[in-house]
């Protein structure tokens, strides 16, 4: 038995070393890729500045809040920490990672919407592909929410298995990325899409709400000021979603509880203009710039930033 175990181990060691090398090489290439999947996390580890304002939320944060405009109008230094396809649970994991490498922000602009409290499980796993070997702590945190197998966590290269096409897409992707923001200069894609009410339901998951409230309490204890923002959604969502009032009530209660201001852009005239959106949920680059300009002026006017 000892001889068998010893020889098996000796046989496996070279394979393990090769897999480790392949994993490291591929991870490095993905980290360096200019992709909307890899950049949002990778850039977070690269930037070393300290920032006054952090923008948090899902893809509706990452493609709609332009830090360049905020910085110019508010004379500050902001960074967009939006995370595509993720609800508050994953957004906060990203925020925690951010805090491990940077100082605490003075202000947080939190993009809230119908999908923020919808627990994310297992989707968009490609977004954290390369970071497993890079950051074991991140792996541990993400493990709570993503369905990674033991093999994927501990056997090098195994998490890439079966994802060749996706990895190739990541490697050839090219986005214009600026401080966590990437504007999408795309045409309107939802012209012929029928309204699906299930997509526009508001999840009020009690665990997610509790997680969110804990986050707010923790930030307020560190004197970080939080602002809630409803970024524009296309008007048909507002008209047809069965849960708009439920959403307003939920965030309204949280805002009241923690004395947080809310800016609502869902009633803006721009919500009627499909030339400013690429789909019902997301503004295109032009729309994003217009919205960020308005937001910056409004932030200035309500005196959210302490001068």
């Amino acid at each position: 038995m000892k001889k068998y175990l010893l020889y098996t181990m000796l046989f496996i060691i070279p394979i393990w070393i090769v897999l480790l090398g392949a994993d490291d090489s591929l991870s490095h290439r993905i980290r360096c890729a200019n992709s909307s999947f890899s950049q949002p996390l990778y850039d977070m580890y690269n930037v070393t500045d300290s920032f006054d304002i952090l923008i948090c939320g899902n893809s509706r944060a990452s493609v709609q809040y332009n830090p360049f405009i905020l910085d110019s109008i508010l004379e500050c230094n902001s960074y967009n920490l939006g995370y595509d396809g993720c609800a508050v649970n994953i957004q906060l994991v990203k925020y925690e990672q951010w805090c491990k490498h940077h100082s605490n922000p003075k202000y947080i602009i939190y993009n809230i919407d119908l999908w923020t409290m919808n627990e994310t499980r297992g989707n968009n796993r490609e977004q954290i592909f390369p970071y497993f070997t890079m950051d074991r702590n991140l792996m541990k945190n993400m493990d709570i929410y993503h369905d990674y197998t033991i093999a994927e966590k501990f056997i090098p290269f195994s998490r890439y298995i079966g994802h060749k096409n996706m990895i190739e897409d990541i490697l050839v992707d090219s986005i214009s990325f600026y401080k966590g923001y990437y504007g999408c200069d795309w045409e309107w894609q939802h012209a012929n899409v029928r309204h699906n009410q299930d997509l526009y339901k508001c999840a009020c998951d009690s665990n997610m709400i509790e997680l969110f409230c804990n986050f707010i309490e923790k930030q307020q204890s560190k004197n970080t000021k939080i602002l809630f923002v409803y970024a524009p959604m296309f008007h048909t969502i507002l008209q047809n979603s069965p849960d708009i009032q439920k959403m307003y009530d939920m965030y309204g209660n949280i805002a009241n509880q923690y004395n947080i201001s809310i800016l609502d852009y869902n009633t803006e005239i721009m919500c009627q203009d499909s030339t400013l959106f690429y789909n019902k949920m997301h503004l295109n680059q032009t729309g994003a710039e217009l919205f960020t300009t308005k937001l910056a002026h409004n932030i200035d006017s309500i005196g959210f930033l302490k001068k």
Partner: protein
Amino acid sequence: MIANIIVNLGILGIYKYYDFFATQFARLFGIESDFLLLHLILPVGISFYTFQALSYSIDVYRKQIQPTHDIVAFTAFLSFFPQLVAGPIERATNLLPQFQKKRTFDYATAVDGMRQILWGLFKKIVVADNCATYVDTVLADISSQSGSTLLLAAVLFTFQIYGDFSGYSDIAIGTAKLFGIKLMRNFNVPYFSRDIAEFWRRWHISLTTWFRDYVYIPLGGSRPNIPETIRQKGDKALEARYTKWIALRNTFVIFLLSGFWHGANWTFVLWGAYHALLFVPLLLLNKNRRYRDTVATITLPDGTIKTKWLPSLKEAGQMLLTFTLAVFGWIIFRATGLKTLSAWVTGIFDSSLFSIPWLMNRSYYITLAISILVLILVEWINRTREHGLAAPKVSKLSQLLVYYILVTWVIISMYINQKAVTFIYFQF
């Protein structure tokens, strides 16, 4: 005994066949079938362990084994994990005693088990899963494919199902060896068979022998008892005709049952009937037991088997013909229904049969061709051994090199294949 068979087959029948018969019944009488259906989820491997349980009961009834009082050994026999979901369907006479006696670790057996697992992984992941990519893509849109593409899909499915099922069997048998358990052989290079009778002695051996021992022989097999009324006439020709008729009937029964065992679908029944029909000429000409040895081998006076490098022209022709017949059988097996089967067969015999088939991409095609070639070559060289990597007669360094190449090939194939293809026989 009867109660035992009714309970075992009853469970299998309700889970696997009830909805099928209810649908056929409703269709026959033109009534709505929805309210009749149970929509039960088929438990994985139910056909395998039901047959294994039946073999124990029948063997005890026949007094071939003593009933066991060792509940641990019995449950281990029924649920031994490597072969639980897709066989080999073990006999109590072989497996049960192995759980009852003390086992000691044997280095050579364990190493051989590892080799067999590696060969099984190669067959499954490199050959079968790569074939599946092409076959699934082609069959997703069968009507727009050329005849040559459909024929290539049929040939590749032939390798897919062999790689998939025999690969699983190798992994199961190899894993069992690590625990000191010897499972029965399930495949013995079936595509090197010289006729369809030999093919069935080499394909899914555990199921074929199960049907032979528990259905075919009890029904009279090929040597039935001659009824007294015929015997009294003293007509030898009549007795011979009667014997032949019973053998034919029994052959059809086991092939139809074997087809139906695979699933509640007419295509499986048709597949069984197709093979029974191929068997008929051999049975009528008394040639069904012609080839009991392995192709291109010579048995020396001392009993050792010497292999030849190449088969004779006649043997090569026989193997090619048997392989072609098997390919058409697999078309019936793979078709999801009679309409798909019809579209597939008529699609092949189209004027486009002689056009260049659609190929996914050059690198995929080359890799697949090489992997199939390696499969054929390795199995040909080792056709008298238990598995492709058994008892190698090359230096340790060469062995190690081969193992590393296979491991690398398996890993790269896993990376390239977009989805893990589940074992085909898990559905049965």
